[in-house]
């Protein structure tokens, strides 16, 4: 229900006095209301929930988790980050 999907903002326009935009999710374009992320710029990523962008993804923070993981690694393994492989399900 609280699903929020990250997508790339590809178009910005106004409708009924409301800032609107088109957001791309893996090739699919959807119309999104930008009233809650008025600062969003073309090309930026937003988290979308029920047709509203609820946040701008902070690109630097998005990388944080990977440095966090590097820091917890055993000293021997550090640096040789293995090839990424997605979890199977």
């Amino acid at each position, binding site marked *: 229900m*609280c*699903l*929020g999907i990250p997508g790339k903002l590809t178009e910005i326009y106004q409708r009924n006095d409301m800032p609107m935009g088109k957001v791309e999710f893996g090739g699919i374009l959807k119309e999104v209301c930008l*009233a809650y992320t008025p600062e969003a710029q073309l090309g930026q990523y937003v988290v979308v929930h029920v047709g509203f962008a609820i*946040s701008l*993804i902070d690109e630097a923070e998005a990388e944080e988790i990977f440095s966090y993981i590097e820091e*917890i690694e055993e000293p021997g393994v550090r640096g040789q980050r293995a090839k990424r492989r*997605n979890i199977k399900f």
Partner: protein
Amino acid sequence: MKYIDEYRDAVAAKKLVEAIRSTTTRPWNIMEVCGGQTHAILRFALDEMLPGRITLIHGPGCPVCVTPIEIIDKAIAIASLPEVIFCSFGDMLRVPGSEKDLLTVKSEGGRVRVVYSPMDAVALAGKNPDREVVFFAIGFETTAPANAMAVVQASKLGLDNFSVLVAHVLVPPAIRAVLSSPENLVQGFLAAGHVCTITGIDQYRPIAEEFGVPIVATGFEPLDILQGVLMCVRQLEEGRADVEIQYTRSVRPEGNPAARKTIEEVFEPVPRKWRGIGEIPMSGLALREKYAKYDAAGRFSVEGITADEPAECIAGEVLQGRRKPHECPAFGTRCTPDRPLGAPMVSSEGACAAYYRYRRKCSGRACPACRRK
């Protein structure tokens, strides 16, 4: 997809699991509040990757699951009216009311429409001036700004044929209710990342302090959840009870000020009944006086409807983390996603449906239900 795939990296997940293992010295019970997290935990079998001493308890964070049966009955009564187009998120259509569900109303000829956004319902009201368009406004703080904006927009456009049946719920009072229960097992929380994206984390500080529990605002991908667990376990092991943010790419400490403002403008906190749990003080949102004319319950006089939940369903116990879905005698037999007895079997984020889909067979040692016995 960007910002999704990289957070499903198996090697990084292993490293986080290892770190959790080496940090854990005692058994800990951690509740993930949000149904979206529950779904991801079961889907990616994250609970089975974790060391045996960490137990994840699935919380009440599925708005579909906690919407009380009497609100479903009200929705059904309104949707059955000939002049009404009843709009809802898809999940709600199969939630059983006392006698039927919204899907049955639709098959009986009622105008029930699934919408992706509440703004679609506003647009429908504009296109159908001779009909009453009613939107079923459910959800947590994540959805409240969208639903509030639909009301603001209808009011701006002068759409008097639009109204909302409001069943909004709030997370912090639910966490308090879980912690205040004498049977509470939960020692730390993963708070819901998208709820906190809207509200920020300030409301959680008094809870962490009063009950001495760590609370970590956590995202929804496997690495997010595992990092959230690690941050929570570190706090537990160090004897800290702070509010931290794991999901920093979306959650700012102050939340989303524009969204908070619109919620504040349209809604006010009220006591709300939760399915299977009962009434929790100030745990819901209702329209403010200023927008009272958009209240569907008043407009269609369904306020008086009350109903009891089916006795067999132990959803209340499941939603408070006291029992796992497959400890319910009806699980997988009299209650399945095709014929759900209770709401947690309907929504894909409901704990019962997630167990039915991913964990129907007991997986032995890793089976979270068996582990507790």
